[in-house]
């Protein structure tokens, strides 16, 4: 009876071993990431071995007792190996967090990821310009609020459509042209910019856009991020600037035309007026009374003055319309040239004009000569009771710019008038006292400004005036040129 129970209980235990082995094997096959696979495999092997030995005990005849003993020994070794392996992983297994703690950690991580996802979504959603996400085939996957607002389509009408729906029909040619560059971008992770495109609004109107396309590669798929910039404002500004430039060019052309007309057609009748007035006076001398002669003089004087004004205006127009050449100029030579041109005025006024050491600057030699000539001429004209003394010098300022000074001992200029003297046709004195057109200093200012400098006055009425102006320096290598030329002349 007891024996019967023992055999049956042995069978039950043996079946339990089988189930245990199969479960363990299933677990190990399915959970390839199980951290204690070696130990598990050894336990499995031990279980199989023990099962086998148990089965053999029932089935094998007594004659094979020896083989049974050997397999029993193998099973025993496997069992102890399994024990050893399990013993070794126990500390590691103990170190594993318990499941509820792990769950908590995972939940926290998931919440954190959700927050990050939400942040990323909001960044895209609230970006100040339209952002469209498309798949590799150019189908829209996601759009943001600005896309809806800019293009006038509701989100639902865009998602799933081709990106072409945002383009005017003439630019849609999906496969061959791919204006959004979406398909190309999917293959080229570098990102690209496409300019001079047009967006199509829901109402059919178009607006100029520029887009940036960037492939977004994830482990699941490749998406294309298209950032769209509405460049209407920029294009409008560009167009306005171009219009302005065209107008300027046209008005410059008009000015050149005016200059030609003025030099011929405007002066011609004036010359007639003055010539025939003079002829009248010459021919009918004695037949006119004093008043008659004086009137004729006024007429002649008026036409001469107008002729001088036209000439001065032409000079000013010439400075404006001409592109002044910018090359290294020896300003000393320009100054000496101006003094030569003024030689008779210098002699007449008994002036002493001194030109100090002057630098090589960047500019137009003709215009610089005219600048010195107008300023020195001015000093000679507005002289005081004593013979004029005019000195020209230059100081290098900290930023490398040259500051020139033309100093005189003349009548000076009231500080309140310092800006006025540079305005065209502005005069501070009557023509009888100091003749002139009132344009000379305007020309000076124009020349200096066209050279990128500025001009100003320091003056004490009754003591003298200094005209200061700044000019850019010549590049270092060019400054030595005059010296080299001088050497050449010696040869």
């Amino acid at each position, binding site marked *: 009876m007891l024996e019967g129970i023992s055999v049956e209980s042995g069978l039950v235990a043996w079946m339990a071993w089988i189930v245990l082995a199969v479960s363990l094997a299933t677990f190990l096959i399915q959970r390839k990431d199980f951290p204690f696979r070696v130990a598990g495999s050894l336990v499995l092997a031990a279980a199989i071995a023990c099962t086998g030995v148990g089965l053999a005990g029932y089935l094998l005849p007594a004659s094979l007792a020896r083989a049974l003993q050997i397999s029993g020994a193998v099973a025993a070794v496997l069992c102890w190996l399994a024990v050893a392996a399990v013993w070794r992983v126990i500390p590691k297994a103990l170190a594993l967090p318990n499941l509820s703690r792990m769950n908590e950690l995972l939940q926290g991580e998931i919440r954190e990821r959700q927050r990050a996802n939400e942040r990323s979504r909001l960044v895209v959603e609230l970006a100040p310009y339209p952002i469209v996400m498309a798949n590799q085939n150019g189908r829209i996957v996601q759009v943001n609020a600005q896309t809806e607002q800019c293009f006038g389509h509701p989100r639902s009408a865009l998602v799933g459509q081709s990106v072409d729906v945002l383009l005017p029909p003439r630019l849609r040619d999906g496969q061959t042209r791919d204006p959004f560059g979406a398909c190309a971008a999917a293959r080229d992770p570098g990102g690209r910019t496409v300019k001079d495109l047009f967006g199509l609004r829901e109402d059919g109107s178009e607006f100029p856009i520029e887009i940036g396309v960037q492939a977004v590669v994830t482990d699941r798929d490749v998406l294309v991020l298209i950032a769209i910039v509405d460049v209407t404002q920029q294009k409008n500004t560009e167009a306005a600037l171009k219009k302005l430039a065209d107008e300027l060019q046209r008005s410059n052309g008009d000015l050149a035309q005016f*200059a*030609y007309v003025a*030099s*011929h*057609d405007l*002066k*011609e009748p*004036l*010359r*007639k007026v*003055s*010539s*025939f007035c*003079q*002829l009248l006076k*010459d021919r009918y001398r004695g037949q006119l009374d004093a008043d008659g002669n004086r009137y004729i003089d006024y007429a002649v004087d008026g*036409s*001469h003055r107008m*002729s001088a004004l036209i000439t001065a205006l032409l000079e000013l127009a010439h400075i404006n319309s001409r592109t002044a050449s910018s090359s290294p100029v020896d300003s000393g030579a320009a100054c000496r040239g101006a003094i030569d041109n003024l030689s008779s005025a210098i002699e007449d006024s008994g002036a002493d004009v001194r030109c100090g050491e002057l630098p090589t600057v960047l500019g137009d030699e003709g215009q610089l000569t005219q600048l010195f000539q107008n300023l020195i001429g001015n000093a000679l004209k507005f002289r005081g009771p004593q013979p004029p003394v005019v000195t020209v010098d230059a100081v290098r300022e900290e930023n490398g710019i040259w500051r020139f000074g033309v100093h005189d001992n003349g009548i000076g200029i009231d500080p309140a008038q310092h800006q006025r003297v540079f305005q065209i046709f502005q005069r501070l004195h009557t023509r009888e006292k100091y003749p002139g057109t009132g344009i000379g200093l305007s020309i000076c200012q124009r020349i200096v400004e066209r050279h990128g400098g500025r001009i100003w006055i320091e003056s004490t009425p009754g003591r003298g005036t200094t005209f200061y102006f700044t000019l850019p320096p010549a590049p270092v290598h060019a400054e030595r040129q005059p010296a080299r030329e001088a050497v050449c002349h010696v040869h």
Partner: protein
Amino acid sequence: MSIDILLAEDDPADVCLMREALAQSQLPTHLNVVRDGVELLEYLRQEGEHATARRPGIILLDLNMPRKSGAEALAEIKRDPALRSIPVIVLTTSNSRDDVSRSYELCANCFVTKPADLHLFFDLVRLIERFWLEAATLP
């Protein structure tokens, strides 16, 4: 024997001034006037109403003229082997660098700007006479 001067000038007032200026000189000159470039070439080639015209000693040429400008006429004269030896003095109100250089490029013999002042103009005409009609030997 007076010297023939041919003046190409469309403005009667200028023609009048030139007559006045020449009248003051002691030189025996004869002034003929054509009113534009087309007539100037007809005159020189003795065409139409100028069939009996005499070849001038010098030509005084205004640049701004109707039908054919002074510059065009100048270019044509200097291209024509029969005419190119006649000295051409460009006498104009213009003092633009472009007009000056263009005139000399077209082989003008001299470029003179008319002064605004009458007496300076008379002086200038006297100077032209003294140089071109007295000092210089004409072909």
